[in-house]
């Protein structure tokens, strides 16, 4: 099992969610986050006072999947979240040791 964590542009969420559902991904967790990468931040000007805003709003999407689905999920997220502009985000994949569904007690593959 792998945990796939994707940082994407907020307005791309619906497309990503639809693509993952049609692949058979059963659930996801979405968090509003702030951060920066190559895009850096931007500046805001109020009556001549300039402020550098270093952290931009993004969404963090987390899905847990079986190993054989990882490539398809990465492909789906990459193609749907891509605008070609700087700031499209990143995908991180990490190993996942255990999964438990709290209601039934099912574990690992059965719990995904």
């Amino acid at each position, binding site marked *: 099992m792998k945990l796939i964590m994707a940082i994407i542009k907020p307005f791309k969420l619906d497309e990503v969610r639809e693509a993952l559902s049609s692949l058979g991904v059963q659930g996801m967790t979405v968090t509003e986050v702030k951060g920066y990468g190559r895009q850096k931040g931007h500046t805001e000007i*109020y*009556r*001549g*006072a300039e402020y550098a*805003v270093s952290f931009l709003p993004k969404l963090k999407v987390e899905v847990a999947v079986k190993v054989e689905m990882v490539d398809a999920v990465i492909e789906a997220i990459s193609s749907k979240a891509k605008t070609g502009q700087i700031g499209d985000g990143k995908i991180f994949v990490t190993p996942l040791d255990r999964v438990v569904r709290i209601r039934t007690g099912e574990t690992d593959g059965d719990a995904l």
Partner: protein
Amino acid sequence: MNISKLKKAALVALTSVGALIATAGSAFAAAPKIDSGDTAWMITSSALVLMMTIPGLALFYAGMVRRKNVLATMAQSFGATCVITVLWMIIGYSIAFTPNPDASWNQFIGGFAYLFLKPMGLNAVSSLAGTIPESVYMFFQMTFAIITPALIAGALADRMKFSAFLWFMALWLLFVYCPIAHWVWGGGWLGTLGALDYAGGTVVHLNAGTAGLVTCLVLGKRIGYGNENMAPHNLVLSVIGASLLWVGWFGFNAGSAVTANVNAGMAAAATQIATAAASLGWMFAEWLVAKKPSVLGMISGAVAGLVAITPASGFVDPTGALIIGLAAGVVCYISAVWMKKLFGYDDALDAWGVHGVGGALGAMLTGAFASNAINSASKGWLYDGNIGQMLIQFYDVAAVFVYCGVGTFIILKVIDMIIGLRVSPEVEVEGLDINLHGETVHG
């Protein structure tokens, strides 16, 4: 049928008797005649001007501060409204708008006969407003006395103790606003000299702006000024506030005719034209220099235009209003954005940059564009060839600037010695809302 006819006949009879009594009554009435139209307009105007402060100014300022100081900023407008209302009733109206029995003293300060408004009976009429009840005139002037000190809050935002702020409002009202209002409007020396200030370019705006400049210099900069992000937390509040100011300002300027007549109408038209022109002036100046037309810039420009047309509104024609508005938008943009940076004072929300500079500019341009054809009480430079008016306007500006500057400085120093002006650094960093008022917004 018969009964209804009888009823009709009785009604007609009653009405004609009533009319006879009314006619007889008016024939014997004393000289000052209360005009119902004027009275209705002036009660409306008073309420409109009150709306400028609460919630107009409160929202305008609260939107521009950081989220930790929102309630504290609104508390300043609201607290000032209440303190000044009570003081105006006790003594303010008396020393600003009633005559001093000593004619030479009357050049500088009004009398003390109206303490607690004692002589103001139901039928009292002020010599300064002959067609409305004095209760209405007193209320109308009260709303001006409220907004003037409340405007200063823009300069001292984010760092003043609430107790010190209330003391400041009270003392500043009595020792700075009341005398200056008397000089210009209450029968004092500047009005006698012929200074033109229709609704308060110098009495209200230059006065509040100058006090703001002195206050931000005495208080010092906010902690982190120039390094930390002090971006407005919610400009939607400021847009609503500025729009309420704009609408309320018709009570301010057109109400300053103190009658519902042709002058009030022209003042309202001039106000609308100048405000829109100033908003465009600021917007295009900023668009040109900073590459983007900011929303804060558009509303700041509108307020600058309202300020600058205030002294001129009853004296200028629509063309004059257009030029004054455009000039105010560009000049106040320069003062709030460039001059502040150049000199490095922390006029947090630009009380001086918009109200001080806009008020002085408006007062001078009133001398230039005042037209005898619009108001028989005035003769300006450009239309009527009366260049001497410019000198009188300059005296007005200089007198208000100097008296207010010195008076404000002394008041602040006295308060600072006795209770201290500024909150502790810990309170300032953590925020005024939770520390001064025990409340927060936005969780």
